[in-house]
């Protein structure tokens, strides 16, 4: 096949545009790092408030060396994952039940609305009183905060299943399990995965807020103790670690979404 030079030009222009788009976020990060270095070099801000990058790196290396960073990260990560699992599971199951039996929504609405409209920082201390200062209270805090988006997305997802497709499944004499697996689940999946992405970032908040209130380990605990010791570099290291956790989990779910919703991309093309 003869290639048309106009098309080739168009294609390479598209490629350049795409590469630029991919690189832009990295450029932003690089710029911020350089700005940070420059501010410190000129001593425009106090090193107590914004320590130079080298100090932060040193704090990072030290925390990594003595194993404390890994230990605290694993604690927070564990609380988050268990909390996510618990909150998402209960949210999805209850959401499915509510979508199927609207009466349940009326029965449960006072509890759900109360949970949703109270700020997490307000009931975190209460959860500490009930579940102790160990990881359990943080797991519960995380579960509570991720529960609501999962619930809502399950309800919305299941209720938006096409009634005509339901008719199709009925005409095929599909039982409830097959209707769930072949119709309801795949139909609701885009909404549920979008909700799960939100939930991962909320999970970090849940675990860390719990640790702020009272804890003996975890990244939230690390921030609190470093702050009391005016160890700003260590505070920054802990905060950046939380960011890294949140971003990794978010990307993981985004990847799962990307893989399982290939049909949507191809349908849109």
């Amino acid at each position, binding site marked *: 096949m003869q290639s048309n030079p106009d098309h080739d030009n168009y294609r390479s222009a598209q490629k350049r545009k795409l590469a630029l788009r991919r690189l832009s976020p990295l450029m932003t990060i690089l710029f911020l790092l350089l700005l940070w270095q420059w501010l410190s070099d000129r001593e425009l801000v106090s090193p107590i408030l914004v320590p130079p990058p080298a100090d932060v790196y040193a704090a990072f290396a030290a925390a990594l060396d003595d194993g404390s960073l890994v230990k605290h990260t694993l604690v927070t990560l564990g609380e988050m994952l268990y909390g996510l699992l618990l909150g998402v599971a209960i949210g999805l199951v209850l959401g499915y039940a509510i979508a199927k039996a609207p009466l349940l929504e009326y029965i449960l609405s006072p509890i759900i609305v109360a949970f949703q409209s109270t700020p997490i920082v307000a009931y975190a201390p209460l959860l500490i009183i009930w579940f102790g200062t160990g990881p359990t209270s943080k797991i519960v805090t995380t579960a509570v905060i991720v529960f609501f988006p999962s619930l809502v997305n399950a309800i919305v997802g299941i209720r938006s299943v096409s009634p*005509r*497709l339901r*008719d*199709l*499944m*009925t*005409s*095929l*004499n*599909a039982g409830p399990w*097959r209707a769930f697996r*072949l*119709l309801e689940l*795949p*139909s609701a*999946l885009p909404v549920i995965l979008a909700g799960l992405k939100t939930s991962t970032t909320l999970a970090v908040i849940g675990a860390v807020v719990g640790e702020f209130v009272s804890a003996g380990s975890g990244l939230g605990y690390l921030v609190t103790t470093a702050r009391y010791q005016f160890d700003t570099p260590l505070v920054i290291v802990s905060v950046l670690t939380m960011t890294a956790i949140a971003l990794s989990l978010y990307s993981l779910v985004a990847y799962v979404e990307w893989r399982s919703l290939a*049909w*949507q991309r*191809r*349908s*849109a093309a």
Partner: protein
Amino acid sequence: MKLRVEDLVVSFRNPDGELLPVLGPLSFSVSDNEFACVLGPSGCGKSTLIQVLAGLLPPTSGAAYSDGQVITRPLSGAAIMFQDTNLLPWRTVLDNIALPLEVAGISRADRYRRVRKLLPQLNLEDFERAYPAELSGGMAQRVALGRVIVQKPRAWLLDEPFGALDALTRESLRLELLQLRAGARQTLILVTHDINEAVLLADRVIVLSRRPGAVVADIEIALPRPRAADMIYQREFLLLTKEIRSYIDEQRA
């Protein structure tokens, strides 16, 4: 499968709570292996009739019967093709056609083997991995038809299967439908608002009135089979379509 409706009436409640009759009272019966077309103007209750026959909608009064039994739920021997293609957008062509087999608990290897045997007849061999949104209107209709055929139904209930297509595609699909049915003999009820389509395909045309649809004519189509596209220019064909048109025009008056 013999299908019959007797004194069938379907009414829907409108938003004000009043009962709005959309179909009937009507009675007719379609014998085993017969191809009947139900012809009627838009909104006369054709889709409603198909849904009752498919066991998806309980009638307000009267009943539908299959082989003498009252239809109260979807029959395993009957397959419905919906007015729009009603495909699952997240499933490929292969998996959409295989859906009834998967619901029936047939293994993946068996499902795919049976669907792949069907694909050439449907002119879909090269598209088994395509998603519905990637198909043309005609191909999507073929997939929906394949989903009916794969069930090996004794009764086909087709709701305006070619309604949304351009004239040329519609014409070729009509003849494909006759070929697909030619092998095994089954009872067919096809709903349409196209007179030529009804006469070209059917053994019998049942003409419905405007809403609420009732039978205004029941006409035997004694044209020879196999039918061909150019039959529409034959004298007998024209006489039949003219007769049917007169029943429909009467309605309008």
